[in-house]
């Protein structure tokens, strides 16, 4: 019998037995605080409601919408194909498998963008990339996509193009018929509506 086999036997026993005596060690990967700070101060995590609307209409397969509001709010109204992941459950394993899917762009949204931003920080800290926040949240969604305001007559042609896109998106999402556009023209003449326009511009 070769002596080497005896040495190898002992080596295997020592190595496998040694596993029991390893001191505790935490290998959890957190993102570096400095990296996290840089990504927080950058506005690149924000996606506009127009971009989201375009992606939904085009059935973009890489878009994953996550509603971080509570389940009852989600039940009331949410975006098309959005998943509900209440803010306090993001750290649970059941939900984490929905994050960081290869090739998917995860977009968080809530009523405004505060909760969604918090969800974004948590997801980033957990080490997930490709996570974004819908700028302005559902309030902005309502004021820009569902009930867009017509730009003033002196506005640039880009503003009118954007308006016509939003109008089309509104019809797509609400199922309004084309007559509603003339109705909304009437409402834009209302002075109170114009006040709202300035609020919407600043709000999101």
């Amino acid at each position, binding site marked *: *019998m070769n002596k080497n*086999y005896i040495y190898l*036997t002992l080596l*295997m*026993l020592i*190595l*496998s*037995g040694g*596993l*029991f005596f*390893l001191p505790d*060690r935490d*290998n959890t*990967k957190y993102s570096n605080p400095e990296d996290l700070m840089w990504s927080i101060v950058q506005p690149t995590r924000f996606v506009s409601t127009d971009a989201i609307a375009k992606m939904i209409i085009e059935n973009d397969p890489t878009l994953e919408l996550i509603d971080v509001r509570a389940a009852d709010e989600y039940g009331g109204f949410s975006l098309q194909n959005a998943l509900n992941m209440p803010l306090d459950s993001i750290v649970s394993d059941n939900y984490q498998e929905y994050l960081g899917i290869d090739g998917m762009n995860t977009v968080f949204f809530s009523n405004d963008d505060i909760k969604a931003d918090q969800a974004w920080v948590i997801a980033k800290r957990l080490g997930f*990339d490709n996570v974004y926040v819908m700028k302005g949240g559902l309030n902005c969604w309502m004021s820009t996509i569902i009930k867009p305001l017509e730009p003033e007559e002196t506005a640039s042609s880009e503003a009118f193009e954007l308006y016509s896109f939003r109008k089309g998106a509104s019809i797509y999402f609400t199922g309004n018929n084309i007559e509603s556009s003339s109705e909304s023209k009437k409402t834009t003449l209302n002075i109170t509506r114009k006040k709202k326009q300035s609020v919407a511009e600043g709000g999101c």
Partner: protein
Amino acid sequence: MGPLIPQGIITGDWDFVIALLLGIAFGFILEASGFSSSRNITGAFYGYNFVVLRVFFTAVLVAMIGLLYFDYMGWIAMDMLYILPTYLTPMILGSIIMGFGFVLGGFCPGTSYTAIAIGKIDAMVFTGGLFLGIFMFSETFPFFSDFYYSENMGNITISEMLGVSNEVFTFILVVVGLAAFWGTWIIEKRVRKNINPYKFD
């Protein structure tokens, strides 16, 4: 840092390059261990040669211990490794069929290719049968696909199923493996006294 592709350190395009390199290394080790001879392989069933058991057990034990240490050092994230789902009864049946093929043909799929590489005609016939089997399996698959996917236990490991830690299970398997190594040497010695046609060392 590892696993490299899921962590995004290298892209998935490297899959085939890595597979090729691993395949070459695997084939080399199989050939170097004498697995291109069907006499060596079937010896495990007749009791005169347990090199198959020793080589594969060694590979399993080294990989297990290595993975646990790598995980501890933070070099590989064990929870990111892919674990094949377990379909209990279909897998037991599959193993029995595989065992029959093993002892009847004298090769398992991998070793038949190493034997072809050194020009063995029996291995060429074996792989012919292998492809015929794959073809028949694929054509008749709809008839037993329900059974094939039955008893899905998910991506479970043995230590999870038994409720013990990975370290405990590894240690038990090391002890069992080492006992098997020494035990089979004794069996080989006794059996080989009574046969004489081949020398294996």
